């Protein structure tokens, strides 16, 4: 199931660069990663992960960040919005209390379509 998700994300939507911080409930995601189709860089903290993914996006590679739901609220997304850098944020749906104004959906295609169209960060809720 999770392996299929990575395949869809990397091969259909062409997201190749990922970074982030492991969180509770993300172990399946990490164990299903495939270095043949994606590249993952472990980050020191959430802000570094977000900015690194933003930089890779500016270089022309679609990128995603794996973050804990509550940590997303503390992140400053203003930089991405100001400079129109779309980023896919992947998080677990558990205990989700995401702040208002941040697009989220449990359908991957909807989130990807939103962030590519509006050039803003969007959250994919992993069920």
């Amino acid at each position, binding site marked *: 199931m999770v392996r299929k998700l990575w395949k869809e994300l*990397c091969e259909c939507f062409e997201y*190749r660069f990922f970074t982030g911080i492991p969180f509770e409930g993300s172990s399946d995601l990490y164990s299903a990663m495939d270095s043949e189709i994606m590249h993952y860089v472990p*980050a020191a903290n959430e*802000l570094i992960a977000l*900015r690194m993914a933003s930089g890779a996006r*500016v*270089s022309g590679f679609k990128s995603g960040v794996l973050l804990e739901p509550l940590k997303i609220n503390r992140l400053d997304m203003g930089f991405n919005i100001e400079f*129109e850098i779309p980023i896919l944020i992947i998080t677990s749906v558990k205990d989700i209390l995401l702040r208002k104004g941040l697009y989220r959906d449990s359908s991957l295609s909807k989130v990807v379509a939103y962030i590519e169209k509006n050039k803003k960060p969007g959250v994919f809720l992993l069920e």
Partner: protein
Amino acid sequence: MRRYTGVRVLTQTILDCDLAVYIGKDICKEAYQYRQHDNNLYLSDEEEGLISFALGMAIGTDKRIFVFCEDQYFIRNMSEFMQAGVSKCKNFVVVLFVSGGYTNVSNTPLIFDEVNSQHGILYNMGFMVHNYSNFFKQHKNPIKHIRKFWARIRGPLAVLLPVDNRKKDMPVVELSKNMTATKEFIRNKDITGYSYVPPFSIEELALGV
């Protein structure tokens, strides 16, 4: 050495195929005065995570990324420098102007000056370190010399340049509000980058090679 002299010399050594990221209003003003180019990105140091942003760009391109910032930014964002150091990203260079004070707030002292070994910290983080403390006294044409050995460098490289706190009035520069020129520059395959294989070959993954 005054900081604006350091900015003038080092920005002139950057090639047209390199990308320069200037962090901090004062550094941006000085750099804008001496080198105006599409491949310059001016960012305010009020923002955090800019070293990681530059690192992300370096990961995705074969062009060299030069970041110019002050020691106060280093102190505030050390974890970012650690991330850059361990990345082993060969096209990433950070130039650190070491003034030992907050130049924007009446030169109030900064703890970085009290550190036993400034280059030791950066070296242990994974950077190769160049210390230019005496370089400018020994060379009459520093631009020529620096350009010569920067042509062969492998990153991640940290350049330490001790500067004093004297300022020069520079015209105000408009900090970047959009990144279109930078995006176009960095994605332009016609501008040949540095002659080495990027550490992470995302491009190969994208092409399915």
